[in-house]
């Protein structure tokens, strides 16, 4: 075989061709621009406190600079883009998933602690105690608000305030108010007119010269909006309404009040092996998990067996020399492969519909039965196996495998053909097993995992495979428990890793 060492042995010379020189400079500038933009990402992620992502792009930018900067690594330049793609979108997500599995990352623990703290500090409340009565005064065409404090003491200084004239705009917006000694001249508007103006008043924000904001708190009052929490030097927050102290619980990632009650939102923290403990010990999670685990293996195993049986018979028939029209059959049998899966699976979904689907019409005509394919667990599972069998019944590779020894009559099959063929087929079977083990699209599009397992604390269905179960825990309405999903995903990673190593050994890949 011819190999080259990417001209790294040749001395670097200044090219005589002008175009060549320009091209070199352009490619250098491109690499530099890429490195700079990656470094910008690093700094931006670092400033946001997302060190995992900062590290990812730092590694990416640095390796880019090294590979394209050193002449000894000329060969690696060719490999780098593809490896970078795999690194960022396959290997990093994998490691990140494993990392998430040791945290309580979920929809309630999503933002960083700083962001959660900032959210609490942004919260406000209306100080009902220091409210102002208000009246509307008309001066010619214009209307002003006049506010008078209810008690003697106010939290904002002045006890009488008068506003700028109201503007006739749709949006409420902000309006300045000034301290005043007495009510303005002009006619006081009655309750009916106040009610007519209510919507506009509700959107209005009055701002005092000190910067305190007031909002409408009832048909007769405006009340100041005050920040609800202040930060204490030790990192805890004080609720200004009732003086409760909220202390950050860095073990669970929540602010807790005096009675230990948790306030959402929280932030993600490391929880060690908690997620794994939940999968293996908590009966509400373990029960469904084990059921789904077993079903996943049963499904993948049966599908492979079914596929192998049907495919083997078909392949033997199509290998039969004396049979005519083999090409036509072959073309027709390829059809299930050619139709995109997301369409053929949905076609099956329609055909299995209980009241209108064609399959039930035929079954009713023949046997007078009308199975409920989607709500009865056993029927739903049967349906899945039927669909998969039909979708995959003709593994193309079987043709070639059985062509080797001419696939004889059925009597010879088990004695000669099968033992001969099973060895080269094993890697294929393992690959098919792994594929069906993770056949997410089929489950999601056909049943969505339903019917549900009763008494499960996570979204779990009787037809769910481990992958679709993980997906539902992570992305479906109830909870979005990313940490738990990542823990289950990590367990599946280990399984897949075992399968792929086995496959690599069996197929004896030579590099």
């Amino acid at each position, binding site marked *: 075989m011819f190999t080259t060492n990417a001209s790294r042995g040749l001395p670097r010379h200044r090219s005589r061709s002008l175009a060549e020189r320009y091209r070199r400079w352009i490619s250098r500038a491109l690499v530099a621009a890429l490195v700079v933009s990656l470094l910008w990402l690093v700094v931006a992620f670092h400033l946001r406190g997302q060190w995992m992502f900062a590290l990812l792009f730092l590694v990416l930018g640095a390796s880019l600079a090294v590979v394209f900067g050193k002449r000894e690594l000329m060969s690696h330049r060719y490999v780098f883009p593809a490896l970078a793609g795999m690194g960022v979108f396959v290997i990093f997500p*994998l490691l990140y998933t494993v990392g998430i599995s040791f945290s309580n990352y979920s929809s309630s623990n999503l933002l960083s602690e700083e962001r959660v703290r900032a959210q609490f500090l942004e919260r406000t409340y209306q100080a009902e105690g220091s409210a102002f009565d208000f009246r509307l005064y008309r001066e010619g065409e214009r209307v002003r608000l006049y506010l008078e404090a209810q008690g003697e003491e106010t939290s904002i200084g002045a006890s009488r305030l008068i506003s700028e004239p109201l503007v006739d705009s749709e949006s409420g917006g902000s309006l300045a108010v000034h301290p005043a000694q007495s009510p303005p001249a002009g006619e006081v508007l009655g309750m009916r007119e106040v009610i007519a103006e209510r919507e506009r008043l509700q959107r209005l924000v009055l701002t005092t010269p000190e910067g305190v904001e007031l909002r409408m708190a009832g048909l007769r009052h405006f009340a100041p909006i005050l920040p609800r929490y202040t930060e204490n030097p030790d990192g805890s927050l004080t609720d200004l309404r009732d003086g409760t102290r909220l202390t950050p619980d860095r073990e669970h990632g929540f602010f807790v009040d005096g009675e230990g009650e948790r306030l959402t939102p929280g932030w993600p923290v490391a929880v060690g092996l908690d997620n794994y403990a939940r999968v293996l010990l908590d009966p509400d999670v373990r029960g469904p998990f084990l059921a789904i685990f077993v079903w996943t293996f049963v499904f993948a195993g049966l599908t492979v067996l079914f596929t192998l049986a049907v495919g083997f018979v078909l392949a033997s028939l199509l290998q039969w020399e004396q049979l005519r029209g083999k090409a036509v059959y072959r073309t027709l049998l390829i059809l299930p492969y050619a139709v995109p899966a997301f369409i053929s699976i949905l076609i099956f979904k329609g055909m299995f519909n209980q009241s*209108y689907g064609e399959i039930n019409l035929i079954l009713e005509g023949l046997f007078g039965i009308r199975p409920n394919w989607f709500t009865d667990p056993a029927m739903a599972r049967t349906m899945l196996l039927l669909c998969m069998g039909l979708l995959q019944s003709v593994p193309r590779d079987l043709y070639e495998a059985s062509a080797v020894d001419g696939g004889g009559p059925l009597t010879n099959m088990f004695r000669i053909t099968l033992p001969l063929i099973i060895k080269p087929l094993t890697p294929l079977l393992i690959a098919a097993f792994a594929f069906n083990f993770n056949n997410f699209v089929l489950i999601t599009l056909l049943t969505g995992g339903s019917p549900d397992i009763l008494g499960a604390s996570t979204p779990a269905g009787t037809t769910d495979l481990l992958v679709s179960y993980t997906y539902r825990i992570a992305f479906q309405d109830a909870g979005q428990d990313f940490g738990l999903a990542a823990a289950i995903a990590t367990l599946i990673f280990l399984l897949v890793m075992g399968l792929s190593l086995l496959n690599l050994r069996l197929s004896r890949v030579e590099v």
Partner: protein
Amino acid sequence: MAMVQPRSIRARKLAAHLALLGVVALVAFPLLLVISISFREGNFATGNLIPERFSLEHWSLALGIPWERADGSVVQPPFPVLLWLWNSVKVAAVSSVLILLLATTSAYAFARMRFRGKAGLLKGMLIFQMFPPVLSLVALYALFDRLGQLVPWLGINSHGSLILASLGAVALHIWTIKGYFESIDGSLEEAAMIDGASTWQAFRHILLPLSVPILMVVFILAFIMSIMEYPMASVLLLDEDKLTLAVGAQQYLAEHNQRWGDFAAAAVLSGLPITLVFLLCQRWIVGGLTAGGVKG
């Protein structure tokens, strides 16, 4: 075979034909059924394979044209099927071109060059390719969510993120192209390099023109895989006008409002081109893959 001629060979042939025909019928029935349903009136109307009450309503809706019923009521198209198809084709085309670029250059290095860590990289790629991307969706979602806060056109709900995410799946293509490159004799490039061509020039002007067939095969494979990609798109895309066909199509058969007829028309309309491309390229794909696989 010829020596042990069974007595009942005709009966056996007949049985074989019957069995094959049965399977073909089983496979072809759903497809014919869908075509038939797309021309029937109403959703979930039953009847023969040849529709008795012929109607173009579903087809009109699938093409995005409002349909006026006999009683004067006008039906609006439920979903923008053509837009979805266009989204799918757009994403698939861009990502296949990028995948082809990445895979070809690195396959060249793997096939022709010696460098440190080559064997490890090749094996590692095979292992990592086995991990289903569904499982790292949480991480990918987090990645693009954060990235989108800095670079909006790469965030959640953008086609950029979907294209970028597909760049992870290059290992298979690298192996395919590598096998093909290794089956081409290297003496042509050697000659070119003796004449003063650089490595890149030998690759660009000698090897690439020779490998157009395998590049076509890989492009089509990547294109079809991208069109059919479901899990990533279902997480990364949110708005109805951003969806790809694979994610959008299932909305026809939602839990409580199944539009069987509309779905059938949309499925035939959008699935037919993809199916035809696959069937036409079938021979090349198998040929190309085995050509690449022999040496793999």
